[in-house]
């Protein structure tokens, strides 16, 4: 039983990562109805920025963390302005292809940057190798979690609360909601739709970067770490594409199922658990757990 809980706990930590990337997908999907296939690669860039911040610039970890988020915020906005804005109003497929191109570009260019390259890097964090034990008496019989996992969960929770407040209680958040409901109407009501989209891309990039920085101490930083984003798609679908809490819940489900499958099922199932879950979900409830069910009117 304890072992099971132990697995669930680490699954939750992993799920938070998926959830954060899925959150990035969902934010962009809500605003522009397209999927950003470069989401994982934005996460990878975040990881590398953290690396440069701590190692090359010698910043303290949390300062580097914040700096990386800020840089990625502007990077996401720039990306929207340069690459995506000209495609406003084009079919989703077009935009998907351009983000795939951006992903390729990011993965390729990273290998050409000195210090980054094709190697795997370790991101030094102050909370490395610490252990937290929950419940039980002292060190025995309790649930043991590594500090990395605890930080992942804590930061994710903080981020979700921050985003919730942003969306519910600020002018800009409400403008974003209006835009995602009906772009044209929002535009006529005087909401600067383009600037809102730009901001959404920025926030989405920053959220992904956050996932990258949280994941880095658990795995490594390398050019292909963004492929983990492919497991965040299922997370977003399970939650119901377009639902922010759904993204997180979906991420958690995928994370936990994957961890359990890795332990209890034969080898190989861990890697495809996420995809099996999503196929089952699509068969049972295509709109996901929190998805909206709309049909075309004629």
């Amino acid at each position, binding site marked *: 039983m304890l072992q099971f809980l132990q697995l669930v706990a680490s699954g939750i930590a992993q799920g938070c990562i998926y959830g954060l990337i899925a959150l990035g997908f969902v934010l962009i999907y809500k605003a522009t109805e397209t999927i950003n296939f470069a989401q994982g690669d934005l996460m990878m860039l975040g990881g590398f920025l953290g690396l440069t911040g701590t190692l090359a610039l010698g910043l303290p970890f949390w300062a580097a963390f914040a700096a990386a988020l800020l840089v990625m915020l502007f990077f996401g906005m720039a990306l929207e302005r340069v*690459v995506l804005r000209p495609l406003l109003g084009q*079919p*989703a497929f077009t935009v*998907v292809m351009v983000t795939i191109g951006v992903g*390729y*570009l990011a993965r390729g260019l990273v290998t050409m940057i000195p210090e980054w390259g*094709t190697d795997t890097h370790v991101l030094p964090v102050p909370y490395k190798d610490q252990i937290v034990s929950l419940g039980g008496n002292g060190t025995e019989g309790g649930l043991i979690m590594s500090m990395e996992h605890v930080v992942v969960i804590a930061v994710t929770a903080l981020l979700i609360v921050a985003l919730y407040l942003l969306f519910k209680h600020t002018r800009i958040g409400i403008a974003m909601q209006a835009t995602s409901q009906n772009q044209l109407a929002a535009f006529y009501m005087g909401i600067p739709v383009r600037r809102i989209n730009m901001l959404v891309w920025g926030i989405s990039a920053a959220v992904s970067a956050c996932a990258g920085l949280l994941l880095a101490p658990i795995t490594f930083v390398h050019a292909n770490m963004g492929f983990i984003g492919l497991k965040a798609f299922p997370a977003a*679908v399970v939650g119901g594409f377009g639902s922010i809490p759904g993204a997180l819940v979906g991420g958690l489900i995928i994370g936990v199922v994957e961890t359990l499958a890795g332990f209890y099922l034969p080898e190989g199932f861990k890697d*495809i658990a996420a995809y099996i879950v999503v196929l089952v979900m699509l068969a049972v409830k295509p709109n996901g757990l929190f998805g909206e069910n709309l049909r*075309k009117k004629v």
Partner: protein
Amino acid sequence: MRFLFKTDYRQDLRLFKHGGQVFWYGALLLALAAAPWLLPDYWVSQLIFVCIYAIAGIGLMVLVGFTGQVSLGHAAFLAMGAYTEAYLQSHGWPFVLSLAFSALVAGATGIIVGLPALRVKGMYLAIATLAFGFIVEEGVARAESLTGGNAGKMLGSLEVFGLPIDSDQRFYYLVLFFLVLVVLGVMNLLRSPTGRAFVAIRDSEISAQSMGINLARYKTTAFALSAAIAGIAGALYAHKIRFLSPDQFTFLQSIELLMILVIGGVGSIYGAIFGAAFWIVVQQLIVLAKDWLPPAIGQQTGLQPTVFGLILVAFVLFEPMGLYGRWLKIRTFFQLFPFYRKGLFRRQKSYMKSERLK
């Protein structure tokens, strides 16, 4: 500008609309047939890859370009075709039979992968196909007794009707034959009710069904055909490479096929062929360029993805109709000279027509 005076409905059913087309396509076929005699072996080998990619691309085009269903897992069908061919060949099946069976197996897989398409659309379907792609990839790696797993599987030498296909020259003719066959088949499809039903589904599902089109049946047909064509490409690929391993059929391979379509131009057979040719040429150019670039850039493994990423973004932004669209524009420019207007092919912009409601 050419004016066609039509006097018979049959004229619109012809594959070639006028004598000029017959002449130019004939010349093209002749040039392709002569290629092995004129080009060095290395280029013949590359031409083979162009043909194989073009076949796979046409397969994907049937699905994406004509039926409007996205597939992010097409490499799975290539894998099914390739491994079925390898397995059957090692069990002594003659090529013609094993190839047909490979197409059949891939097509059957296509039907299974297409099942979600009956319920979900757009992005959800994309993710479902992506999931199937990963599952097949993993399955191939695990089914070691059939596929050799991660260690790979070798193929024996190929024989067609007793004729050993032992050189790239001979294999090139074989591949070219299948490319022509596939092109003709798909062209036939497009001028007949099935092809029109595909296009109808792509443009409006609601009115397609109100016109009596059984959505489930035609979507399944599109998936099966598309997968079967990809299966043929996979089987040919297996014979070209002669060594199969699961990492040849990854998610990235599926994405590359989509990139080929976008670069070539979505929505026409030309697009798939142009895209495939462009893809191989650029790959070769990158190999050539490596010696000329500073090592910090040229020797990096990231060079190829960078170039492809850049090309893809550039195409979507500046030439969304792809190479075929560019060719149409150039042709129209000369035909209408000097009356060509810049906006002639401009895309229609719609202010976010919600996909959620489709």
